[in-house]
């Protein structure tokens, strides 16, 4: 695509009202959550208070309390921050690894490609869920960072394959040969010449991956293999709903978190879909 790739992406978002609203909402949500959580005292929120168990929403506890008397609103903010951090970190780490592997594999081709793709195949066949669950049980205290790292180990392959196929196309173009005769090193050609030409694909894939990765932690926490209750997250809040009493009578504990997951994933997905359309001239609205 031409140089104004970023402008085309931006124009498509502006033309698609839903995507624009989603983007603004997501940005505000991120700013709000990370801003508010600065003023919240995490240790106080996760402290058990036996005199305030299962309080319904009130002026003191905006979203009530859970079975440990902990403020649900505070947990929601900190939980959203943790879940978002995981989503963003996993996307970035798996993205960087995947892009590097993909572009190197595609650019060099031949033996290098063969070796890297076999390594990739190895990671593809690993039973992800089992290994994550084992990891969670053997590591005594894990937080956002270690969780993101272990998840990234299993999530870089998709993007690597995608980038590889695009890099295979790009390296056949004459501008790569021209750079070679101009005396540029392979490293320079890969990162300065080839990478800018696949940047729009990278942005689209990373955005769509982000939507998926935010739900990642919630799923595991719901199954009981995510964070402990001392580290609130959207997943831990939703998992309270496994108790039928909570599910039926204490909506304030799990409903806000569930809705938030839904809205966050939807809004990122809307943006991602608009970006994806922008990369294909036939589907553009703008």
């Amino acid at each position, binding site marked *: 695509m031409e140089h104004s790739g970023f402008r085309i992406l931006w124009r498509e978002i502006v033309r698609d009202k839903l995507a624009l609203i989603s983007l603004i909402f997501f940005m505000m949500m991120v700013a709000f959550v990370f801003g508010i959580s600065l003023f919240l005292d995490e240790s106080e929120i996760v402290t058990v208070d036996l005199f305030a168990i299962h309080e319904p929403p009130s002026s003191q506890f905006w979203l009530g309390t859970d079975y440990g008397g902990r403020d649900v609103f505070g947990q929601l903010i900190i939980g959203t921050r943790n879940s978002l951090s995981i989503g963003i970190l996993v996307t970035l780490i798996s993205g960087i690894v995947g892009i590097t592997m993909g572009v190197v594999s595609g650019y060099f081709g031949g033996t290098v490609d063969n070796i890297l793709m076999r390594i990739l195949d190895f990671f593809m066949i690993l039973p992800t869920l089992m290994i994550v669950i084992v990891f969670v049980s053997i590591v005594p205290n894990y937080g956002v960072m270690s969780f993101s790292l272990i998840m990234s180990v299993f999530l870089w392959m998709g993007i690597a394959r995608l980038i590889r196929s695009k890099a295979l196309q790009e390296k056949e173009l004459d501008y790569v040969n*021209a*750079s070679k005769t*101009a*005396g540029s090193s392979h490293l320079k050609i890969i990162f300065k010449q080839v990478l800018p*030409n696949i940047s729009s694909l990278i942005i689209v894939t990373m955005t769509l991956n982000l939507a998926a990765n935010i739900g990642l932690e919630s799923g595991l926490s719901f199954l009981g293999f995510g964070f402990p209750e001392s580290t609130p997250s959207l997943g831990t809040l939703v998992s309270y709903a496994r108790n039928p009493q909570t599910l039926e009578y204490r909506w304030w504990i799990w409903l806000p978190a569930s809705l938030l997951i839904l809205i966050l994933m939807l809004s990122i997905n809307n943006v991602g879909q608009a970006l994806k359309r922008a990369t294909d001239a036939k589907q553009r609205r703008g």
Partner: protein
Amino acid sequence: MALLKLEDLHVHFPIRSGVFKRIVGHVKAVNGVSLELKSGETYGLVGESGSGKTTTGRAVIGLNEITSGKVFYAGKNLIEKKRTKELRREIQMIFQDPYSSLNPKKRVLDIIAEPLRNFESLTKQEEQKRVQQLLSQVGLSQKSIAKYPHEFSGGQRQRIGIARAIALQPKLIIADEPVSALDVSVQAQVLNFMKDLQKELNLTYLLISHDLGIIRHMCDRIGIMYKGRLVEEATAKEIYENPQHIYTKRLISSIPDIDPKNRGKMMALREEVKRDFDEKYNQYFDENGLAYDLKAIAADHFAALPGEGQ
């Protein structure tokens, strides 16, 4: 002394097949080519598609690996020694397709300055000055510097490609079908401009083309390639007026004549040459269908004629 000398150059590509990607054979794209380029001349390499002319050019500049043979540049063997920086900057290339040979994400400044950044350490101002100088040399406006390739026409793009090729003041330029992607009206413009540049910078061209008109217009000496081998090599005049090899004869007879009065004559001539070609094919090519080695016919005329002479 010759600036560039190829001795028995071979470039073979393996054909792989089967589960284990075993090598089952070779495509002999270039199969024993020897030629010499004198400093300051334009050497034309002509041939049909797949005759190995582009591969020869790409092998000289190092984009294709050489299977065997020798490439001497100014007396130095390019194969034995690793290409030094100095050697790399003296051989540059003009690419066939002006659309894919310029990176669409880069400004003209970055495209033309790329070789400068690799070989010379210039400050930002010096670099900008050099690029502007190059732009005026190829006849583009100073404003072009901040534009992107898609803002230019095909002919202008090819000029940007030429500016990049001459940025390092090379001695030898390999021009791989430099105008075949352009309109006829722009072709002449770019070719004449290449000629002027040659005089100005004392360049040596290895011009690869399938267009006999362009070759006649540009070249001092011509080599005709067929199936990876040279079948005839001579000065431009000799090739066009006194072709010896049947393949050359057939190629020359295929040049259209602009005068409609000659239509019948030309058709008869072509028929005759074709008959000749079909009849004598086995005589001019060995049992593998390859041309024989070049033999001297005159001082500056070589042809791959069969052993028993003319």
